[in-house]
């Protein structure tokens, strides 16, 4: 079958699933999941075909475009609705479709008791559609559409349990904060059009980067930053990170799919996609790197003290996204996408696992009421342990490769400060992950006595996806980063690694502008040292967590030491409280946006009713009053009238007298 048919199908199938379910799902009851899951499965299969074609060079370096129709034919402003696939897209397709499929399957079990079963699958399909359009979009505007659509579907999914006020608020917050970023994105798109006269991604980039001699009305740096603003919104980078933790109000599969594995990566994808623009705007890249690494640090610091299992993961997600942006900022685009993919899998795994845990302890999310679950829910435990090791960056699991590549590149490209902070964050990461594992699975149980006996492992339909996600969490790093044989040749690649090979054409122009050239990988040189360091710090964090919160791996056994935790946190009271209170961002928002903003809005309304409208009504009132006043002349007495007439007569005589002799 021709690609021109297949590629659209990837996106259209979920859409069809959505429309179908939205229309008749209500009546399907417990069978509501069949169509959506099938749709996603099918679209996964097709995606894999497309991906294979892509990475085996089936589309050449230029990629493959499928035009659907002329969307906005407004004279000079001409936008096509078209899809585009190149290796970058392919990489994203892998993550999106795979995790998407698994989450769908997982949800069959997780949501089975929910009255809104059909609604949930409808929304999920809508999300899949939007996300796929986002990665497939050929023009900035198409991407923007998807950009907002994923916002919508995430809004719907976060607010899925609309009776919960917190959920409703969180969903709104997510959408609006995203909108803030979108404004930047939109302005960026306008700027691009004004500069280049086209909105096709590659054409516009070509113009922007090649004709640097031409003086553009809008400087490229501005465009880059505007695009980055959009990315910040979707990928929840500081200061727009506030929505992501709240988004945990949604059902756990949603958190796994949208707020860990796919949507939040959109920002990373966008920047990577626009890499030449950033390459020709170095200042912008520094900003990206700075914000990225700072977010990583900030989030990690918060994650260390949170007690809600999902929130810990949420902040961890923030932190990891921070890494990715740091990588993008320093120019290690491959590394960024690499981490995006690995992170997608193991964070998805961790979230689904946490969902399974929450399920097991009857919708309890507070880790202080867990503990010792390892024996009771072994599958969940094992898979989550794998996920944690992966994210902590212990070789040879996936996380190690990607994170190490980011740090290494940062160092080698001369961003030592990024590297340094990154290392610190690595320690924290390992620490809070094993704190999580420790508090949840090890030590004696603190579970509510009533619930205690009822704890049970989740059904197959949930555990199988966990295992399926565990596999890439372990191997993906090796597969994508292993330099040379045996995998390379299989995909007709040579050089530093599979992914790097795939993405090479995508980044060629950007790298050229930056003047980077892939340094030869020297395991017995700088790279080796860096690897040792990052592994060391990972272990350090891990061990620290063990000493405080205990460990039960094979022979390695140790009880947690709450006393120590208390004393330690007491030693740095400020830091502790800051971390606990998430650096008071919510409070800040409340003050600025509600207290002050509320006053402003109220004032403006007052202004509108009393001043603007007041003037209008005032004029009317004055007119009427003056009428009443003039009416007083009409006394009803003839003599008064006569006097009036006489006076009028006199005035008139004078008036005419003035004109005498003219």
């Amino acid at each position, binding site marked *: 079958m021709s690609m021109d048919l297949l590629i659209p199908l990837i996106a259209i199938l979920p859409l069809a699933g959505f429309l179908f379910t939205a229309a008749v799902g209500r009546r399907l009851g417990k069978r509501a999941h069949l169509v959506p899951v099938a749709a996603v499965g099918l679209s996964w299969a097709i995606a894999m075909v497309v991906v294979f074609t892509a990475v085996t060079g089936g589309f050449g370096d230029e990629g493959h475009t499928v035009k659907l129709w002329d969307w906005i034919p407004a004279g000079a402003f001409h936008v096509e609705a078209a899809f585009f696939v190149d290796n970058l897209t392919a990489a994203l397709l892998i993550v999106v479709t795979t995790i998407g499929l698994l989450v769908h399957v997982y949800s069959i079990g997780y949501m089975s008791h929910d009255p809104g079963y059909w609604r949930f699958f409808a929304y999920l399909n809508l999300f899949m559609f939007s996300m796929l359009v986002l990665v497939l979009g050929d023009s900035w505007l198409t991407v923007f559409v998807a950009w907002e659509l994923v916002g919508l579907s995430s809004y719907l999914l976060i607010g899925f349990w609309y009776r919960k006020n917190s959920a409703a608020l969180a969903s709104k917050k997510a959408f609006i904060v995203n909108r803030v970023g979108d404004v930047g994105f939109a302005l960026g798109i306008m700027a691009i059009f004004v500069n280049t006269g086209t909105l096709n991604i590659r054409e516009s980039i070509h113009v922007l980067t090649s004709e640097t001699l031409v003086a553009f009305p809008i400087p490229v740096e501005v465009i880059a930053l505007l695009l980055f603003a959009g990315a910040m919104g979707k990928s929840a980078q500081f200061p727009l990170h506030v929505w992501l933790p709240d988004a945990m109000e949604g059902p756990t599969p949603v958190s796994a799919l949208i707020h860990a594995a796919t949507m939040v990566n959109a920002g990373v994808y966008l920047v990577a996609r626009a890499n030449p623009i950033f390459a020709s705007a170095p200042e912008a890249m520094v900003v990206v790197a700075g914000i990225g690494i700072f977010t990583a640090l900030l989030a990690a610091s918060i994650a260390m003290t949170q007690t809600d299992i999902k929130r810990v993961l949420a902040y961890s997600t923030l932190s990891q996204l921070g890494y990715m942006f740091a990588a993008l900022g320093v120019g290690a685009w491959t590394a960024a996408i690499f981490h995006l993919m690995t992170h997608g899998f193991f964070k998805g795994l961790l979230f689904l696992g946490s969902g399974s845990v929450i399920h097991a302890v009857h919708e309890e999310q507070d880790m202080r009421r867990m503990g010792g679950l390892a024996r009771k829910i072994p599958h969940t435990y094992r898979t989550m342990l794998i996920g944690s090791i992966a994210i902590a960056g212990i070789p040879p699991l996936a996380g190690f490769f990607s994170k190490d590549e980011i740090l290494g590149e940062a160092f080698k490209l001369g961003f030592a400060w990024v590297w340094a902070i990154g290392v610190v964050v690595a320690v924290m990461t390992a620490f809070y992950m094993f704190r999580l594992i420790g508090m949840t699975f090890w030590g004696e149980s603190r579970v509510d006595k009533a619930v205690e006996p009822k704890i049970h492992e989740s059904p197959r339909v949930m555990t199988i996806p966990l295992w399926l996600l565990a596999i890439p969490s372990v191997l993906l790093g090796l597969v994508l980063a292993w330099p040379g044989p045996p995998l390379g040749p299989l995909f007709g690649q040579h050089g530093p690694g599979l992914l790097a090979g795939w993405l090479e054409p995508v980044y060629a122009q950007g790298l050229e502008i930056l003047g980077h050239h892939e340094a030869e990988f020297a395991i017995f040189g700088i790279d080796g040292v860096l690897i040792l360091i990052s592994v060391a710090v990972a272990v350090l964090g891990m061990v620290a967590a063990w000493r405080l919160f205990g460990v039960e791996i094979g022979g390695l056994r140790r009880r947690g030491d709450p006393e120590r935790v208390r004393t330690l946190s007491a030693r740095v009271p400020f830091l502790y409280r800051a971390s606990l209170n998430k650096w008071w961002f919510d409070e800040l928002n409340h003050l600025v946006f509600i207290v002050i903003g509320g006053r402003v809005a109220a004032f403006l309304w007052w202004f509108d009713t009393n001043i603007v409208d007041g003037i209008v009504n005032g004029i009317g009132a004055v007119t009427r009053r003056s009428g009443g006043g003039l*009416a*007083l002349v*009409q*006394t*009803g*007495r*003839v*003599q008064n009238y*006569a*006097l009036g007439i*006489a006076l009028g007569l006199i005035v008139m005589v004078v008036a005419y007298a003035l004109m005498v002799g003219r």
Partner: protein
Amino acid sequence: MDLANSLDAYLVLAGALFAIGTFGFLARRNAISMLMSIELMLNAVNLAIVAFGSFIPNLKADGSIIALMVMAVAAAEATVGLAIIIAIYRNRKTPLVDEYDAMRR
């Protein structure tokens, strides 16, 4: 000094009479007094007309005729006026005009 032969004298006299009439009309309260004041004013006009008639050659006879007409008109006015006065006197039982102020504003 030739009063009887100066047009101005007659005109000023007419003016004075007219003013007196005006005063009466503005100042008196009794409807009939006001009517009389109007008659005075009309006579003032008549005086002016007649004066013009006998001094302005073109007007020769016309002056007198016009004066006669004015008198007739004045008579008609008086008729109507008195009729109305009597009618309202029946309703209000007073000839004082400034008490007819049922309608105002």
